[in-house]
């Protein structure tokens, strides 16, 4: 996909591919919101670099959508500041902010055609008809929907509606693109494709983007950085790799990927009693037919086929462990040897020991 001139013309917007915008991106300081006597957002700080794609990831009710709505201007924060490219926006209404949002259910206007939907923001900016037409067609081409420009939203598929919503946001050449659960209404296959499309377009335009999602796989595969949210706070803000390899809290470790959660201490490859929490990723539980260094005899208790791999529950003398196994299918009752390659140690919910080798 190539980049189209009308979208890159504006020198004020950070949409020139490759070159990061002058300064800023998004900076949030001390954001606070109480709704109905309950603290929804608790003194939240977040900074997104220009051209970066950041996901707000967390379970429902963690405040991620509330945060996004405050960035977009639909909700007024009780206190705190929101800066987009160095400009304080928290006192502005949604219509005056330099951000554009893609809504969860797309929010396309049913009485307007696709082209009218996408052109509406430009019409509001008092552009000439010819200019609007050019820009709308360029952006529809970018999302490969030019052939549907005269269709009504009800006549096109969910994936196409989603791309129209994206086009309507992109055509505004926003300094900040906001996406609220953009993929949650699509089926599994389409979701993978659309998230790749979104990432590709975002990279091409170099547009600062914030995505709200509850789907860790979605966040991991699209984001430069992920802010894992819990109870109105950011638990950890780092790259997808770091989030998985070095989760700072037990919450993050449980939320991202899966892990064996055991109480005790890892001592010479064996789990002994203790008050710490051990987090062992399933891929760090190694199974083999023959004894090997650090391995302990184990019995296969349960096998769950997961397609590309098997989820195998084994019972050792010290603990029950879950492992991901590829290759030869295992059978319940089968004798095997299991070793723990590495483990994370949490105390009071926080990581105290780097996941080091246990062997």
């Amino acid at each position, binding site marked *: 996909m190539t980049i189209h001139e009308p979208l890159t013309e504006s020198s004020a917007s950070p949409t020139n591919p490759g070159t990061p915008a002058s300064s800023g991106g998004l900076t949030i300081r001390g954001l606070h919101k109480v709704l109905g006597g309950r603290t929804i957002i608790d003194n939240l700080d977040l900074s997104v670099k220009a051209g970066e794609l950041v996901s707000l990831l967390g379970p429902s009710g963690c405040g991620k959508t509330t945060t996004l709505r405050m960035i977009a*201007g639909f909700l007024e924060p009780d206190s705190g500041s929101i800066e987009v490219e160095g400009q304080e926006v928290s006192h502005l209404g949604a219509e005056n902010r330099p951000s554009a*949002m893609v809504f969860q259910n797309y929010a*396309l206007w*049913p*009485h307007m055609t696709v082209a009218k939907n996408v052109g*509406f923001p430009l019409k*509001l900016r008092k552009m000439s008809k010819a200019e609007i037409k050019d820009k709308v067609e360029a952006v529809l081409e970018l999302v490969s929907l030019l052939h549907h420009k005269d269709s009504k939203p*009800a006549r096109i598929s969910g994936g196409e509606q989603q791309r129209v919503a994206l086009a309507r946001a992109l055509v*505004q050449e926003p300094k900040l693109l906001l996406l609220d659960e953009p993929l949650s209404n699509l089926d599994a296959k389409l979701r993978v494709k659309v998230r790749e499309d979104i990432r590709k377009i975002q990279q091409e335009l170099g547009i600062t983007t914030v995505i709200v999602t509850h789907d860790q796989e979605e966040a991991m595969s699209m984001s430069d950085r992920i802010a894992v949210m819990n109870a109105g706070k950011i638990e950890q803000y780092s790259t997808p790799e770091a989030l998985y390899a070095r989760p700072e809290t037990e919450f993050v470790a449980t939320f991202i990927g899966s892990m064996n959660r055991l109480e005790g201490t890892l001592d010479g490859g064996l789990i002994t009693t203790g008050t710490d929490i051990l987090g062992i990723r399933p891929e760090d539980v190694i199974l083999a037919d023959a004894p090997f260094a650090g391995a302990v005899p184990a019995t296969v208790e349960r096998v769950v086929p997961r397609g590309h791999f098997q989820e195998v529950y084994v019972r050792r003398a010290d603990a029950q462990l879950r492992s991901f196994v590829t290759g030869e299918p295992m059978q319940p009752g089968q004798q095997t040897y299991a070793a723990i390659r590495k483990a994370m140690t949490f105390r009071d919910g926080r990581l105290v020991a780097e996941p080091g080798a246990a062997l």
Partner: protein
Amino acid sequence: MAVATGSPAASRTRRPLTLDAIVRNVLVGLFVALMVVFILGPLLWLGVRAFAGTWTYPNLLPDDWTLRWWQVVVNDGALGIAVQNSLFFAPVTVLVSAVICLPAAYAFARFDFPGRRFFLISLFATNAFPKMGLFVTLAALFYALNLMNTVLGILVVHVLGTVVFMTWIPAAAFAAVPRNLEEAARDAGASKLRVFTSVTLPMALPGIIVAAVMSFLASFDEAQGTYLVGAPAFMTMPTQMYSLVLNYPTQVAAVFSILLAIPSVALMLAAHKHILGGQLAEGFQIK
């Protein structure tokens, strides 16, 4: 008829004449016959009557045909004025009612204010009491305010009769516009007024049109209040109808009812085309 599961039921419905089918056909036939006799019958009689000279029992058709009654109606100055009055009061009523009620409907749909439910329910008050009682007390008030036999007085009576339609139906239509469609317009850079004119109003329009049509018909057919407040200075088609039935041969009343029905029928057809062929069908997938 209890059809349980797949294949046996399918084969049963394919068989030509079961007891179910016979009963169903008889019931449908009976229903159609009743419709014809009680709805189409009087209309047919009306249509024939309007062109009948003399029509004596037990003849199925009139003894002779004439256009005389149409001439009587068209040439009668009073009737012409009645038609003019009706065609003035109905649209103006709709307009005034819309100006007063639509903002209220929007407020009922979008804002939660103290007494919201009370006001919404109390709109029914005008329809809850016998109309004549309401109009008699209204007349007393109108004498005091010098509104008797004035255009304004008649408009007040007509608008009162449309308040429920013009508030409840558009309120439901406004409430049905998803909030995030409005938010999306705000996000695109639209002012609150622009959001209303570009998104909220067009999406609520089918409901508003239905309300306008019902208000138009209510105003067009309003007779009691108009008679009390307006007669004899301002006669509309329905009030003129009363004197016609009493003072002229029945044929004239037949002609007049046909004339009275024309705007209503035309309006219904137009509304039907617009609503079922327009956005309601597009956006809400009603076919």
